[in-house]
């Protein structure tokens, strides 16, 4: 799996799954799959380091989340111990239910973090940059300029730092940063000036090349309002279909607006993703799994996704559909890994 679109489909399907479930058993399955996938994707960057770092993060999030929830939430039937009521905010019974609820929150946070970490590992910076819509060409150029200059600036920082240390600058205090920052800034701005002159000389992007974008801007404003209103109406318990309609409308307008604005930009793609057979298969499988997940959620099939330890502590329910759907993040494991 090497194509950006396949990984984006994987991210979206896994994200919908993560947002739909609070069942700790499914969350454990998702986290284990993400760890296996992440360890495979991190092969070049150091598998052990990646696993240890993320195990530490997951453990910290679990403990922190469970502790914070127990500290501030005093609901539940299984009391562990009690602090005096007069202790501001934290006073009251500390319950097992609150502890478990917090731990489930920690699992969600960890899974979400791991999901994006694996996504970052799987795509190169260039691939992620290419995901920026063509409508934002000047900003994409700016990002590319930054990414191109970054290694040179790092190297220059190292040279200036070494030169300063040879001159006796101990590099211990904040004030020691200025002798690094000032020459670094001047040198970098000289580079920027040269670059802008070269770009001008080659006729790149004069200000008045930009088409009139007022309609696109109005379209984008409508998209923001559609998303916000859909969310707000959902909060106020209006029928779900109104929100779905608004979200869909917003999505359609966004696609149309970005496509229209993108067409006005002259972009040459030097690198295209190479669709292999397994990318096509993975993409189809992910789309089918995502669709299955959406159908399950919309038709409210009992997949055991919801779980709360309140008011009484119970074991989470596990169903075959739910368990199968929680395997979505592991789909890339079915395909051969390419660096």
């Amino acid at each position, binding site marked *: 799996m090497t194509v950006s679109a396949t990984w984006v489909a994987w991210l979206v399907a896994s994200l919908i799954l993560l947002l739909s479930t609070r069942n700790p058993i499914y969350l454990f399955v998702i986290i284990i799959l993400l760890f296996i996938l992440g360890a495979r994707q991190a092969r070049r960057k150091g598998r052990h380091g990646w696993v240890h770092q993320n195990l530490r993060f997951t453990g910290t999030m679990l403990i922190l989340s469970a502790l914070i929830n127990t500290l501030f939430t005093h609901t539940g039937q299984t009391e562990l111990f009690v602090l005096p009521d007069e202790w501001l905010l934290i006073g009251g019974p500390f319950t097992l239910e609150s502890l478990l609820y917090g731990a489930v929150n920690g699992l969600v946070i960890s899974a979400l973090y791991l999901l994006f970490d694996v996504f970052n590992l799987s795509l190169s910076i260039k691939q992620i940059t290419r995901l920026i819509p063509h409508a934002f060409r000047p900003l994409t150029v*700016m990002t590319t300029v*930054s990414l191109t200059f970054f290694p040179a600036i790092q190297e220059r920082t190292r040279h200036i730092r070494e030169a300063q240390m040879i001159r006796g600058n101990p590099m211990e205090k904040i004030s020691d940063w200025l002798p690094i920052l000032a020459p670094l800034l001047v040198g*970098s*701005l000289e580079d920027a000036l040269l670059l802008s002159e070269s770009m001008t000389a080659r006729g790149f992007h004069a200000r008045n090349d930009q088409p009139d974008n007022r309609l696109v801007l109005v379209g984008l*404003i409508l998209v923001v309002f559609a998303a*916000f209103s859909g969310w707000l109406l959902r*909060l*106020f*318990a209006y029928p779900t279909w109104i929100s779905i309609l608004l979200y869909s409308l917003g999505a359609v307008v966004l696609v149309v607006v970005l496509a229209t604005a993108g067409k006005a930009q002259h972009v040459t793609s030097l690198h295209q993703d190479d669709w292999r057979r397994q990318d096509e298969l993975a993409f189809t499988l992910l789309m089918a799994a995502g669709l299955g997940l959406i159908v399950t959620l919309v038709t409210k099939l009992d997949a055991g996704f919801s779980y709360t330890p309140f008011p009484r502590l119970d074991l989470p329910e596990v169903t075959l559909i739910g368990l199968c759907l929680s395997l979505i993040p592991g789909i890339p494991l079915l395909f051969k890994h390419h660096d």
Partner: protein
Amino acid sequence: MRFKFQGLIVNIIVFTLGILSLLAPFMLPQARNSDFSNASFPIIVSLIIILCVLLTLFEIQSAGLDNKMVAFLGVLIALNAGLRFLENAIPGPAGLSPTFFLIIIVGYSFGGRMGFLMGAMTMFVSGLITGGVGPWLPGQMITAGWVGQSAGLLHASLKGSRWQGKPAEIVVLAIFGGFWGLLYGAIMNLWFWPFLAGASGQTWLQNASLAENIGRYSAYYVATSLIWDVTRAVGNILIISLMSRAVLKIFTRFDRRFSFQVNQEQTQ
């Protein structure tokens, strides 16, 4: 004039919707419902915020982002992303970061639009470099963008005053940096807070007053983030006090050099 009006409208919309989304659990009891106060809340808010960021970026781009600005900001963003690594070179307490310094000074020297771009794009490029692309990124982008944008407003409000070019200007900038050091953490926590919150009627009290919920949020903030944010605020104050005079001079010099004009008729 058209771009000023257009910018004003877009900024009002973005600021209102962005803040309303983040503050929803304080103002709307419905947003404290357990369905929304957990995993879905940060993601939906992130989606709204990413749309707001796209809207602002497109407006700035349409208002005239020429190749000089692209090159200038591109290099400065790379430099600022590199400054995040300087934190490791010269160790300081947790939370201390030189990143905001350049965002504030760029916004102050070149205006709100450039400030917003500097803040938002620094976070984006740093996210790409460090593998930090995630649902937290839109929140970081818009908040850092607001840091730069408000620095532009600060400059506009000080313009023509007797403080300009005097030590008082640096003092005002340092206070501004300190204020944003705290506010940045508080805004980012608003996004993250419902993740750690309990079910309805608990951490977020569904029927509680605004003051009571602010009290609960404050307790959470003090317990989890205050020390970190105070360090960042103090760091911003120190960095701005020690370095802004020199950097402002460098920017003034380059502002003149970057103001070359291209004769379109001759180039065609």
